């Protein structure tokens, strides 16, 4: 979960944007209430998406109330219903994914980052204890299994894209599946979660490609296509885009079959426009931006 699943704001209706923000703010508040004020900081777009999806599938929360923002008391925000199973689930998802992500980062990052992680870790552990107390053992198990499976596949030198993406895809498929209320919907949501997980994993891998090449870290694209330093950036971006498109296509087909009871426009915006623009940004625009910055710097140096 890295903040890649977000709406494309210009394409949203204002009322839908308000509704999106209301869920975002409610989740922030809910994290604070259930896990302590500092937990509000791990609020993410991905967890917000999960909250909206869960609300829509279960038909929860269709009204909003006004309240004050905890973080910035001068600001008034809309909040959706105060007691909601979906918010609780999304908060649990945030905590579990954050805890295990931190656990993973601890082993493979530089000195300063490791130091920072050591400072944050006691908080994460405390949140996780609460998570278990609240009965979210399934979330905890899904992520711990995912990390273990991820470690296993990455130790295989011949590991390709599909194999590398499988643990994350499986984890999200389990997380999406639990929202379903009947057999058909279990199948639909399972498949949706699988491809969403795959999409997230791959877009993150594409985003990290350059860093991984430099540091020699594991990257599925490097493995599959034997990418070496000094590669043709445009060609590789096109190639990665093709691979990621396939996940996006499949997740959209599954999305079309989910029984939704509210906020469809927001969700559709996210799975179509949001995903499209994120791919465009990560794979094509970001590189250009970096190049521009670089050429600016060199011209200043001259």
């Amino acid at each position, binding site marked *: 979960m890295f903040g890649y699943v977000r709406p494309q704001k210009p394409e949203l209706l204002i009322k839908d944007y308000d509704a999106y923000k209301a869920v975002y703010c409610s989740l922030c508040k809910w994290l604070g209430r259930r896990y302590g004020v500092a937990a509000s900081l791990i609020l993410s777009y991905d967890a917000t998406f999960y909250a909206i999806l869960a609300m829509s599938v279960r038909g929860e929360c269709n009204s909003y109330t006004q309240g004050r923002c905890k973080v910035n008391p001068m600001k008034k925000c809309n909040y959706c219903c105060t007691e909601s199973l979906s918010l609780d689930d999304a908060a649990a998802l945030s905590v579990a994914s954050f805890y295990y992500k931190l656990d993973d980062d601890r082993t493979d990052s530089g000195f300063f980052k490791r130091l920072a992680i050591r400072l944050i870790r006691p908080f994460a552990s405390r949140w996780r204890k609460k998570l278990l107390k609240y009965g979210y053992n399934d979330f905890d198990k899904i992520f711990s299994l995912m990390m273990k499976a991820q470690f296993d596949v990455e130790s295989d030198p011949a590991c390709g894209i599909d194999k590398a993406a499988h643990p994350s*895809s499986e984890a999200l498929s389990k997380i999406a599946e639990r929202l379903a209320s*009947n057999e058909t919907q279990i199948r639909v949501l399972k498949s949706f979660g*699988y491809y969403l997980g795959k999409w997230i994993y791959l877009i993150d891998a594409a985003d990290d490609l350059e860093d991984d090449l430099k540091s020699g870290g594991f990257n599925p694209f490097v493995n599959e296509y034997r990418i070496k330093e000094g590669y043709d950036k445009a060609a590789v971006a096109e190639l990665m*885009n093709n691979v990621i498109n396939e996940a*996006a296509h499949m997740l*959209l*087909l599954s999305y079309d079959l989910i029984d939704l009871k509210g906020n469809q426009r927001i969700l559709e915006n996210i799975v179509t426009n949001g995903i499209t623009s994120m791919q465009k940004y990560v794979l094509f625009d970001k590189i250009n931006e970096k190049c521009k910055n670089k050429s600016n710097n060199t011209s200043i140096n001259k």
Partner: protein
Amino acid sequence: MANNPYEVLGVSPSATDDEIKAAYRKLAKKYHPDNYTDSPLADVASEKMKEVNEAYDTIMNSRRGRGSTATGGSAAGATGSSRYSDVRQMIKNGRTADAEQILDGVPVQRREAEWYFLKGTVLLKKGWTQDAYNCFQTACNMDPTNQEYRNALNYAQNRRGGYYGGYNTNQPQQAPGCSGCDICTGLCCADTCCECMGGDLIACC
């Protein structure tokens, strides 16, 4: 769907194929999206349409499956076209794990185009889109004339092109030029400038 497909179509399980087709056509006409273009019930209609389609497919698939096993004894010997008819049947019935196990048991040197095609199909069902794509490519390279393999590869290429879902790099960017918005903003600006100088372009504001 928990609904009995025969109930959905309103026919008895002993109905002939033609009767089922007739019932399906009648319902499909009734729920056709064209009938509901401006109706608030369009979503309900499409849901119904889906149910009807599903019911029809289920019945037809199950009947077709029965038909082919009944004639399988003679057909397999006569044509012998597919070494993998059992694997194909498993894939059709959703037993992808079994199908994959059998395919993986085939030694590497005996794997021909059809093997790669079927392996790709199994992988695709599992969600392993990248490996599936590679398999379809291999199948097409080994047997470039086979339309079945070609179709599978074409579908994969379409998915990868981002025509539905994802980002399509070939899509024309928004045409540069003067949109309706630009005209309005331009006029407003011109009006403001005129007013600064004491004149007026748009009288009402």
